[in-house]
């Protein structure tokens, strides 16, 4: 187990490094030098060259990368070319927004999805078909479209939730919850459908296992067979599905943040890409990767822990 964890940690580290290199190269391929981007149109060539020289833009790529990596390890991701603010500080403020959003959506998807999936598998017949139909529709509808409809229904028609904006938890936990409600639900629709399908398939597979017959042969109640034995057997692929879902939802926050005007990482990616703000793009790519890889690692370890075969070895 210790070996397994070490291996996984090394792999996670390698993943982040690969992405850092990739992001660095991408950013360098962006049109416009940092000087041109930061000074804007109309700046003189001398001024642009001066800024580029100050930022080391003309140094060899390798030197630039290791300088960036050295700073990044110390928590310094450079400054924005647009407003000169520290990228690390900015992303530090934004991370909680996206994290609340993605975590909330993942938890809601998991609860809803497992509930629906188990119900479909257990009840069968009409219930199964209805749940299947709803899931099919939920997967087909784009999140941004669902989000707008929710805004229309719950913010315009009846002002249950605020349409846009984000209130930090420290300011008011209640408003924080209210401001997260619509974006979280929006993202969770597709996520829940995905997990419901995964759960249904895993439950059906679990119920095809021969040990289910043994349990019935020893007069185990249907309730126990379903919710203790079959669900336990199905839990491995379900948790793996949730881990994958988190990655998707973390990415989905780009849309939710745009739609609900939330100052999160997704919004930072969108604006920094539009404005060619190289350090910001690079920073946000790396931070997003670190978060996703870390959460994935934890959930993967959880899956391994759920499997007695792997736990024992």
């Amino acid at each position: 187990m210790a070996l397994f964890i070490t291996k996984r940690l090394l792999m996670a580290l390698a993943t982040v490094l690969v992405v850092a290199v990739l992001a660095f190269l991408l950013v360098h391929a962006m049109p416009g030098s940092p000087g041109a981007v930061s000074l804007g149109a109309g700046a003189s060539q001398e001024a642009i060259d001066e800024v580029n020289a100050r930022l080391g833009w003309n140094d060899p790529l390798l030197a630039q990368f290791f300088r960036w990596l050295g700073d990044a390890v110390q928590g310094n991701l450079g400054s924005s070319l647009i407003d000169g603010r520290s990228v690390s500080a900015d992303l530090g403020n934004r991370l909680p927004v996206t994290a609340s959003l993605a975590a909330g959506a993942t938890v809601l998807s998991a609860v809803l999805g497992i509930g629906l999936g188990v119900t479909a598998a257990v009840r069968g017949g009409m219930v199964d078909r209805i749940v299947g139909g709803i899931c099919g529709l939920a997967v087909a509808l784009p999140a941004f479209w669902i989000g707008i409809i929710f805004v229309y229904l719950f913010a315009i028609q009846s002002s249950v939730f605020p349409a846009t904006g984000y209130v930090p938890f420290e300011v008011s936990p209640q408003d924080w919850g209210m401001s997260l409600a619509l974006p979280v639900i929006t993202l969770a629709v597709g996520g829940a459908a995905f997990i419901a399908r995964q759960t249904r398939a895993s439950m059906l597979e679990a119920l095809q296992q021969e040990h289910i017959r043994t349990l019935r042969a020893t007069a185990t109640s249907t309730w126990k067979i379903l919710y203790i034995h079959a669900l336990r057997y199905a839990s491995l692929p379900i948790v793996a599905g949730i881990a994958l879902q988190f990655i998707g939802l973390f990415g989905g926050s780009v849309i939710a943040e745009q739609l609900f005007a939330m100052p999160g990482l997704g919004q930072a990616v969108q604006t920094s890409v539009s404005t060619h703000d190289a350090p910001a793009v690079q920073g946000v790519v790396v931070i997003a990767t670190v978060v996703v890889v870390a959460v994935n690692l934890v959930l993967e370890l959880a899956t391994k822990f759920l499997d007695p075969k792997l736990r024992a070895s």
Partner: protein
Amino acid sequence: MIPNVAPAPADSAPATAAAAVQPKSGQRTAFSKVSASRLFASPGGVAGVVWLAALVVASLTAQWWLPYKTEDQDFTAVLSGPTAAHWLGTDELGRDLLSRIFAAAAGTLGTSLITVIVGVGLGTVLAMVAAGGDRTEGAISRVTEVMMSLPGTVIILAVIGAVGTNIPLIMAILGVLISAGIYRVILGQAKSLQSQLYVDAAKVDGVSTLGISLRHVLPGLTNTIVVQSALIFAVGMLIQAGLAFIGFGPPIPQPSWGGMIQGASQHVYDAPWLMVPTGAVLALTVLAANAIGNALGKSPNAGVSHLPSAAARRQRGRVVAAAVAATGAAASAADTGAIPAKGHLSVRGLSVGVDGGTPLVTGVSFDVEQGTVLGLVGESGCGKTMTALSLLGLLPAGVSATGGQILWNGKNLAAATERDMEGIRGRDIALISQEPMRALDPMFTVGYQLTAAIRRLLKVGKAEARAEALSLLEKVGIVDAKRILKTYPHQISGGMAQRVAIALALSGRPRLLVADEPTTALDVTVQAEILSLLRSLVKDSGMSVVMVTHDLGVVADICDNVAVMYAGQVVESGRTANILDNPRHPYTLALLAADPHANTAADMPERLATISGQVPQPKDWPTGCRFMARCQFAGSACAAPVPLLSSGSEDGLVRCVKADELAVEGLEWLATEVPTHHVMKIVEKDLA
């Protein structure tokens, strides 16, 4: 925003696994036929194809039929709903929505196809390469794992930063990111195809790795590839629309679905209708692609559930109620005259069949007196396991007892409700399965499974149950019972697991044990141990046993009585000694002649007899003798239905019109000439 395509969502997950191994014959042509018929058998699939085809045609011919150009502005009708002039309404600049939606369709579909080609193509190639060798698989899997754990959306946006909104290129890069998920889906199947015997044979024949991949592996993957393509096509459209929605779509005047929804979202306060047409077309198109994928991905031979769903249980309840109403089963228990004594199992005319279809077992009768062992013998597929499972009401989903009686302690179990059966299972009648490893729950320790069963069945406390579990394990011959209690099933050997499974079956102190080939999956030395354990349990406890087996050695060893089954019927029954020494039915005769263990060394024939052909499928059962087609003694009289009659020795019964004739002439089942090409094949296989 990048949805997770990895472990094939929807219905296709178990399907791909189940359908993974297909027989070689006709594999290449199989796809076009099987897939197309599966697609058109599903209403969703048909609707999907129709919608996509209509959309493609409509958008390619758009310039000829669209009422307006995409940029035409009608300022008299800004933000209008559906009108005669604008069927789907107009946007904030008075542009016709219908025209814009269909003008945008071709581009959306075309660029999504790029993602499909790159993603599925790359994923398939990687999977086929990986399936060819362990080391390459390790490397490729490592890389794809990394790819799958990346925040794809953020990376795509960074790429957009570098290359601009070059949609085809973006969609191709998206395909690369998605290929990791496709690889995971296809790899398992490619590996199972790669490990088929005919692939080994091709390797021996010197077919190159590439040749094997293209000729033997790729054709088997076709259906999965098509399914994944359809699903990825949908994913591509959604992502593309999402990108356009956040402002990374085609350049501004050009319409795109995502961009149009973005525009509509600005007017959700004053013109909510604007959201509907574009959203609906996008959703319908994604639904269409998914429907095609799901229709193709549905497995025709999914496994059978051991716990029917609530809906299936209600259905079965109705079947049972109908059977009871039809036969008046409850009353007829008395009609038969002799009500069986306690502990005596009496099966009368039992029929089992697929719900609303084929019969699997017809008119089976036998008796098991207390403290005796009955062997149910026959080849695979003759209905012996179905007969055995019906005693416990544990027939698989979709199969039920359709007639006859199973009389036990004054109850007819064939017509019992699930609730009644729950009171009987484990306490009165217990089950031992064929494969002990699969019969135990891999997620729980032996101790948990045993004590939970004991607490439930004997209604005792935790400590008492633990003591009982220990004594049960010792009773079934496990020495270090304390240690075994703490282990998981995968940590013990097959023989040990079967002992645990027997202990589990004994935990409710049953009066009847149904053992479904309890030694078949075990090593020969362990088989003997388990049999002697069962024999001593019967002797000590006075339990009865119904032993399902195809092994006449097991019958000779442990059974007091035998019922030989063939094609869903009992063809001969009686005392074991009588049947083994003096078989009356040609099938029994043939089974004995074909059994290497039944012949002693002295009279071992030079060549063992065989029974040509196979047990017929239930749908092919003739009205007359079901063994006729394979019988060496068959004659014209055999074509009429054959009753089960007394065989003359004690209470023996036989179902053969020629039984007396055969007995008089003392005929033997002869070994037939084995065709030479048959021998060659066996030799070849051994060499490989």
